[in-house]
C-alpha cells in the first residue's frame, strides 16, 4: 500500500504492508538509518523519533497511524534545543558504542522542549525508557543538565 509521509520536513511516498512499524519504513525504505532497532517492543527507546515534536517509539508505531503528522528523526534535528543537546553530548563525551544515542538524544530533546529545566526525577522519568547497555547514564544525565543550563543562558 502507498503511504504519504512527512519526514524531516519533506513529503515522502513509500510502499509498505499495512501494519508495518514506522521504524522499518524509516530505516529500510527511506534509508534514514540514524534511528535504530533495539528490541521491537518499545522497551529500549533506540527507535525514538518525534511525532509532532513529541518522542514516540517508532518500532511499535504502525505506519497506518502516522497520517499527515510531522515525523522528525535524528537526521532532521535542527532547532536550537537539539543543537544545544547535541553539543552537550559532545562536551561530556557521553557516547560509547553509540548505538542507542540517537534515541537518547531524541528523548532528551523532547523532554527539554516540553520542560526546559527538568529536575533529577523528571529527567529519570523521561529517560527511563531509553536503554544504554554501555551504561553511559551518568553522562546522559549530566549532558541533559548542561543542555538545560545552556538553553537558559
Amino acid at each position: 500500500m502507498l503511504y504519504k509521509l512527512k519526514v524531516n520536513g519533506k513529503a515522502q511516498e513509500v510502499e509498505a504492508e499495512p501494519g508495518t512499524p514506522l521504524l522499518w519504513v524509516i530505516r529500510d525504505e527511506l534509508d534514514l538509518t540514524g534511528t535504530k532497532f533495539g528490541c521491537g517492543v518499545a522497551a529500549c527507546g533506540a527507535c525514538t523519533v518525534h511525532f509532532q515534536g513529541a518522542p514516540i517509539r517508532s518500532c511499535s508505531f504502525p505506519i497506518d497511524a502516522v497520517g499527515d503528522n510531522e515525523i522528525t528523526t535524528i537526521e532532521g534535528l535542527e532547532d536550537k534545543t537539539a543543537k544545544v543537546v547535541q553539543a552537550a553530548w559532545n562536551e561530556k563525551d557521553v557516547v560509547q558504542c553509540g548505538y542507542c544515542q540517537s534515541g537518547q538524544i531524541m528523548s532528551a530533546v523532547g523532554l527539554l522542549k516540553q520542560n526546559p529545566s527538568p529536575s533529577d526525577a523528571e529527567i529519570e522519568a523521561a529517560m527511563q525508557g531509553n536503554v544504554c547497555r554501555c551504561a553511559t547514564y551518568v553522562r546522559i544525565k549530566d549532558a541533559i543538565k548542561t543542555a538545560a543550563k545552556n538553553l537558559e543562558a
Partner: protein
Amino acid sequence: MSQTISRRGFLKSAAAGSAVMMVGLNAGGLLAVGSGDVVVNPFVSINQEGEITVVIKHFEMGQGTTTGLTTLVAEELDADWQKMKIDFAPADGIRYKNLFFGAQLTGGSTAIANSYMQYREAGAMARDLLVRSASAAWGVSPNQIQIRNGVISAGNKTAHFGEFVKEAMALKPIDKPITKTPDQFNLIGKLKLPRKDSQAKTTGQAMFSMDVKLPGMLYVAIHRSPKFGGKVSSLNLDDAKKIGGFVDAKPLANKAGVAVYAKNTWEAFKARDALKVSWDFSGAETRGTEEMRAEYTRLVDEPAMFNGLPTTKEAANIAMQDAEHLVEADFQFPFLSHAPMEPLNCVIEKTPNGVRFHDGCQGPSLVQGVVAYVLGLEQAQVEVKTYYAGGSFGRRANVNADYHVEAALAFQAYGGQTPVKLVWSREDDIRGGYYRPMSLHRAKIGLDAKGQLLGWDHHVAAQPIMKGTPFEAMVVHNGIDHTSVEGLSDTLYQVPNMSMGVSDFKSVIPVLWWRSVGHSHTAFVMESLMDMAAAKAKRDPVALRLSLLDQADAKGQRMANTIKAARDMANWKEGDKRGFASHFSFNTYVAVVADVSVKAKQVHVDKLYIAVDCGVAINPDVIKAQMEGGAGYALGAIARNEVTLDKGEVIEANFPQYQPTRLGDMPEIEVEIVRSNEAPTGVGEPAVPPTGPAIANAIYAVTGVRITDLPMTKAGFTFS
C-alpha cells in the same frame, strides 16, 4: 561515513599520482614507510594535504579504541588532534594481529596494551622522517625543527605535514624509532581529549553494519530450534508465503535453522515467525534451570574432576581443623546474555574473488578462518569491512563465528550471488545462547583467633568456555579451563593452604566470555568470602584485605595502593555500613566502595567510589567512562538478570524479562585513576568484577542479608 570516504580519498589521490606516506609493516613484517606498494595495510597514512589517518586494527564497540589508538600516533607525531582521522582496518591477520593473541581479534581488554608501542613507533617513525625532510629543505639541523600541534617549524619557517610527505618517503627510515619518554607526553594522560567517534554518534551518521544496504540485497531472519541442539526435520511454508515481502525459506546446510528471505527486515521477521518447522530434538538440551541447578549441586557434592592447586582438599581441611572462625557457603550464578544494544547482524556479498562481510567485526581472523572452511574458500578470499559495533561485551568474539556462519550458509543456500543481510531480533539474542555460563562455587575458609587465614577449600562447577575450541591448548591446563577459575587460582591474596577443585558441567547450550569472563563470578565469591570472614573475625574488611596482600611484591603493592585510594576517596571508616570489594583482572587493579539505601527490600545504589590502576592512563576520560560503564553493566546483571530454561526452552524473551540497567538505577560514580608509569593495561572489563560484590557487601552491611544466589532478586530484593 567520514573515515570510509577519507580512506577512499587516499586511494584515489594515490592513484592520481599524489603521494601518500604510509607507515606500517612491510612484506618482511618490519615497520616501514612507503607508498601503498610497499606498505599494503598501514597503521598511519599522511597525504599531501596533511591529513593523517590512523588505521584502527581493533574494532570500536564503545571502549574507546578509535580515540586510544589515535592518541598514540598523534602523541608521537605531535599532530593536531582535530585533524586526526580514523579508518577501520580490513581483515589482515598478519599486519593487524593482536600482538598478544597472534590473530586479528579484540578482547581481553588488550587493545591498548598490545598496541601501545606499535602505534607509537609508527607515529615516531613518521615524525623522524618529517623532521629530517624539513631539516634538509630548510637547511637547518634536525634539532632546530620543532613540531607542535601539527605545525612543523624552524625559526620563521612553518609547514604542515603534507608539505614534506614526498621528500619524507624518499628517505630511509630509522630501524628503531625513538619514542617519547612519559615526561614528554602532551596528549597521553591529557584529562580531556574529545572522543573521535562522538560527533558521528550524536548525529545519527555513525555507520553500524545494521545500517548497510546493498543493491538487490535480501533480508534474512533465521528460524532457530526452540531447544539448543535441535535439528530441522521438516518445514511448512504455507503461512510464511502469506506474508507480503516473503521471498523464500531454506534450511541451513547444518540443519541448525531455516533461513527466511524477505524484501525488508520487518517482513523477514514476520515470515520467520509464520514459518512452521518440525525439529529433531534427539541431540537437544531438554533440561530446565532447576534440573541444571540440581546437577550443579551433585557436581560439588562429589569429588572434583580436576585439581588446580598443589594443596589437596584434605590438606586444606586439616589446616582449618583448629580454626576459630569458619566461613562456608555455596554461591550460584545464572546464565547471562550479553545483550549488546545492536542486535547481531551482518551483510555478506559476493566479490570477484570470494565474499565480503560488512560487520562490526570483533575477530576478523576468526571470521576468515571459519567462513573459509564453511564455504570452501581460502582465508584470503574472505574480506571483512568493519563498521562501528553497537556493543559486544564479548558476544561478537566467537571462535565459532556463529552469526557469520549463519549469514554465509544463508547466502550459499540462495545461490551465492545475491547479497544477504542477516538480522537477529532481540528475542533471537536473548534466546540465542553463547551465555556467560552458570556456575556453582562451594567454598570454605578458616581463620585463627587473630583473624589470620589458615586455609581455603574451594570447588567450582562450571561449564567450560574454551574446551573443544581452537583456544583449548592456550587456556586449558590439567583439565581446568582457566576461564572458569581466573581470579581465583591466581589471586593476589596470600592464602596459605588453598585447594581448588574444578568440575565441568556439560550441556549443548553454547557458552561464551561475557564482560570479564570468569572474573564475573570468581570475584563475587572471593570478595563476599572476604566480607564474611571480616564480619566473623570482627575485622575491618579493608584492613583484612590489606593484611593478605604481599606488599613487597609489585602486584601486591599496586593492589594495596588501589585499595587505599578507594578507601581514602570514600573516606571509609571501620564499622561503616557500606560495601567494599577489590579485584585484579586483565592486569588492572580496581577497588570499589559502594553506598546503598534499602527500604523494605527495595535497593538503590547511591554511590560508587572506584579506584583503578591501569598503568599509564592514556585517555583518562575514556578510562573513567569504562569504570562508569563497567559498573553500570555489572549492576543490572547482578541485581536482576538471568536466563532460565523450562524443558530446554529459554523463558526470557526480550528486555521486559531481561531488564537492563536503566538511568534511574544508576548511582553517582566517582573515579580515581592511580598515577602510574607502568605499561598500560585493560579498562573495558576490570570494573565489572568488584562492582557486584561491593554492592552485595553493602546490602549485607545495611540489612544483614548475605546474598549468595544471583541475581539478587532471588533474595527478595527489588531495585530502582
